């Protein structure tokens, strides 16, 4: 049978995502794509893919997967949890690095730490059809990704490569910091004039808590009421990712990748693109504060962020181990064992 990862346990909310499906919002099709595109790009770069290849996006915890290919190279990025190896021997592989696994190996991504979103990329990518220019999962209409849905037990995730060459494994020299910024930056509007001065002041001074109602569509926050002054219905208009809409109850909802393309609630502000990945990492119970910046400041922040990511993507280094501390897991991790064993087969 063709190369695959077999899902032994799916994790709470695992989907295939790339950098999103643009160009079809006028037909009501959401952009989708990674909640934390920075970690997706890093995971792909580590395994030698193009930055925007589709990878498994895991929320809260990841799946248990059995390798059904001769060799697979993977990288786990986005959270500080390790990749657990359950079979053939128990072990742990640090995040932000690559590892080569053999047929029959079973891996598991445990509950995520420091972020609720992480990515598992595989060298060569998943064998999923590109639909409307993207492999992202569109849950609303049930297409894209793996059969348009979250993973389920027994799924076979096809892989483009049945084997990958043995070579030194690599890691990100300085993994990105996952600590959320003290304040999430927003640009006020497009409907800030629907809110009283007190309502706007509350947005920029109060602390909000991420509720359990946090998914790929948005984060429902709880905090002091944001006071409207012109009602809470607008004639529907477009929605940008990061928009903070405020329904009649005065509780803000920050819209994320799977948000609908248009909406009828006033949007008090929009989170700047440089801070969107941080939102995608927030767990229920986390607190959020906002500060307002201008569009020009947002643009400068995004350009700076992009320079940081570019530096991060260039900072990959080979993993070296001290031979005195070698264990079988460490050997697996640097590929000495499988590399030696498989050399004839690879030839």
């Amino acid at each position, binding site marked *: 049978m063709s190369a695959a990862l077999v899902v032994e346990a799916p994790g709470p909310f695992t989907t295939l995502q790339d950098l999103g499906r*643009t160009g079809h919002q006028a037909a009501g099709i959401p952009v989708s794509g990674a909640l934390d595109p920075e970690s997706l790009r890093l995971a792909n770069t580590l395994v030698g893919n193009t930055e925007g290849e589709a990878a498994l996006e895991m929320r809260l915890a990841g799946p248990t997967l059995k390798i059904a290919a001769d060799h697979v190279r993977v990288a786990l990025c986005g959270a500080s949890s390790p990749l657990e190896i359950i079979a053939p021997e128990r072990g742990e592989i640090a995040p932000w690095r690559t590892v080569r696994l053999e047929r029959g190996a079973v891996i598991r991504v445990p509950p995520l730490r420091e972020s609720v979103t992480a990515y598992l990329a595989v060298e060569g990518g998943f064998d999923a059809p590109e639909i409307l220019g993207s492999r992202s999962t*569109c849950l609303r209409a049930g297409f894209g990704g793996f059969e348009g849905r979250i993973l389920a037990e027994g799924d076979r995730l096809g892989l483009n490569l049945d084997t990958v060459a043995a070579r030194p494994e690599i890691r990100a020299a300085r993994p990105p910091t996952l600590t959320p910024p003290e304040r999430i930056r927003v640009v006020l509007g497009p409907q800030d004039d629907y809110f009283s001065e007190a309502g706007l002041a509350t947005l920029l001074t109060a602390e909000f808590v991420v509720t359990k109602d946090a998914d790929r569509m948005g984060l429902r926050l709880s905090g002091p009421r944001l006071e409207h002054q012109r009602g809470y219905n607008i004639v529907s208009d477009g929605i940008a990712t990061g928009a903070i809409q405020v329904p009649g109850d005065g509780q803000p909802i920050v819209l994320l990748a799977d948000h609908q393309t248009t909406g009828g609630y006033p949007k008090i502000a929009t989170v700047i693109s440089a801070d969107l990945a941080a939102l995608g990492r927030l767990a229920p119970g986390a607190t959020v504060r906002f500060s307002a910046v201008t569009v020009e400041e947002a643009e400068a922040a995004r350009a700076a962020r992009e320079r940081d990511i570019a530096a991060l993507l260039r900072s990959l280094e080979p993993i070296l181990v001290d031979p005195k501390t070698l264990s079988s897991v460490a050997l697996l991790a640097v590929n000495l064992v499988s590399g030696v064993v498989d050399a004839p087969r690879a030839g």
Partner: protein
Amino acid sequence: MSNEIRYLPSGDCALTIEFGDRVDRSLSARAMALRRALERGSIEGVIETVPTFRSLMVHYDPLVISGARLRAQIEVLATDEAEAEAEGRAVTLPVVYGGSHGPDLEDVAKAGGVTAEAAAKLHSDITHYVYMMGFAPGHPYLGDLPKELTLPRRKTPRTRIPAGTVAIAVGQTVIYPFESPGGWRAIGRTPAVLFDIRRDPPSLLRAGDHVRFRPIEVDEYDHLLSRPAAERVEIAGDSA
């Protein structure tokens, strides 16, 4: 007509160009004309545009173009509303009004002081205009309804509205492409397939289209369901 245009930044990746704050054909025409001008002008950095009742949202890449520069380039674009209007196709959708296919038709008729038959006729005698797509893939918002059919959404949303349901509220008509909950008043159902990802393009309708509803009986509805999706609708003037 007021020419006051508002440029409303939606963060650093989108700019809303707002022509007014009403559901209004003349505002929609301006949004559609700007959309067309942007498609023709192909400003570097513009990713896509989304027309709505009264505005156009322009999504762009801030690493390629700044919001200020984008606005400056949009301000000098020439738009042609008549040309944009002519782009709309004429689409005819069969629909069964009332009964189990449109459980709210009786209430709608009662509120408007007419019979159910008259309410259905009011709905099928006019040409509807697709103002925008939103809420879900392939989900159209059509206007404008006569005053007899203008009423608010249901107080209690229905938990399950079948795919193809034609529903009205606030002077507009929507058609649900997928089964979903919803607060609009279900007056009928069409066998037309509003969204199919295997079709190119997947969405049956698009903003700017003109739609007529052709009343049919349940027998014809059932027959059409056995036919390929392309045979269930009539589309004229397709220039896509």
